């Protein structure tokens, strides 16, 4: 499966200025693994070294917010949009 990962403005420097990155994978975990293989400097902003989403990072798979570690197994359909966003948090 291929999908489009939408990069937030605050991460574009880590994505070579790109707004979107083409990624491969059948699940969100596989998509992020693929991203890590090709753009490790971007992927490690999104997940920590345990492979967990950072606490203040939101990911939406075709509009569905991913919250929990287990949600990394969320299917990523062909052509889907994976939107990464900084959570509105921090006080």
């Amino acid at each position: 499966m291929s999908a489009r990962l939408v990069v937030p403005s605050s991460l574009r420097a880590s994505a070579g200025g790109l707004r979107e990155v083409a990624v491969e994978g059948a699940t969100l975990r596989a998509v992020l693994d693929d991203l890590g293989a090709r753009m490790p400097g971007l992927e490690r902003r999104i997940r920590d070294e345990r492979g967990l989403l950072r606490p203040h990072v939101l990911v939406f798979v075709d509009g569905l917010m991913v919250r929990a570690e287990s949600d990394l197994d969320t299917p990523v359909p062909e052509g889907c949009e994976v939107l990464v966003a900084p959570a509105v948090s921090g006080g």
Partner: protein
Amino acid sequence: MAEALVLVGTRKGLIIARSDAGRRSWDVDPMHFANQEVSAVAIDTRRDTPRILAGISWGHWGTSVAYSDDLGHTWQEPDHAPIAFPESTGAALARVWQLHPAPAGQPDVVYAGVEPHALFRSEDGGLSFSLVQGLWDHPHRTQWRPGGGGACLHTVVTHPEDPQWLMAVMSAGGAYRSLDGGATWNPANRGISQPGAPEDQRFPEFGQCVHKVAMHPSRPSRLFAQNHFGVYRSEDAGASWVAIEDGLPSNFGFPIVVHPEHPDMLFNFPLEADMNRIPPSGRCRVYRSTDAGGSWQALSVGLPSETYYAAVLRDAMTTDGGAPAGLYFGTRLGEVYGSLDCGDSWSAVATRLPDVLSVRAAVLP
């Protein structure tokens, strides 16, 4: 032409102040890494081209180490995470508390103290680090508690000639020494008290909240420590400690620094008490001892005379390698002061900054 740098890691970015070797006036760069917490900075002067390292918390996007090989004008960060816990640990990097280039005899070795309590070592000048497994595997580790700022390994001390000798200092785990390059570690807190504990547990083997340890490279057997409770000196490389707080207004504080040209001269910045972390009597004063802690003198010439409530954090007092040596400290009020006369007088290097976390300085040829 020689250039002097003062690096100031703050809660909201990195400030670099530049001067010539005279260090009488300073130009301050526009902020680097704006809005990011820069919790640790280092100037690696061992390289032909000095390298600057900065431990950065990228807000939502995790923690990393950036480097500059052009004195801070431009910055790079490796694609890979410079510091990452191995999968087997189940841990994740929360914050970089200390970046410590090793002595000149180990030209590419840099140590990093991090949160959660761990020590990392780089052999490529700080581009990639590996966990010092011997300390991570220490049986005491599960009993180390977090300090007020977190479960931090905040200070690394290295020996000027013996690469096998290392000290790692943690809040609140205490000081640990390795005599075999980090393979094995032993607590080094004998003589350091734990006020509030039952009488028979007043001097535990470990668990004290050491805030900073300093060594003078010409006297590596002598160490100074500023603790959560107490100021101490060791004459046996950390095997034992004696209190040297008589003459200070308080035994609480964070930084302690030895003057590069005078091994008996040390500086700290006492705070009223652990439950009242403001300068004693609301006065911004550095304290100096010229006899290795036998007596202390308050220094205030050139420092704010108005009531002052800001602390100086543990990594925010430092010296440079100039002649005469410069002393610098930064406060949580965002002010950095420097002195070229052993603290007799001070002047502002930079003001109106975010609160200061880490200060390093160098005079470069």
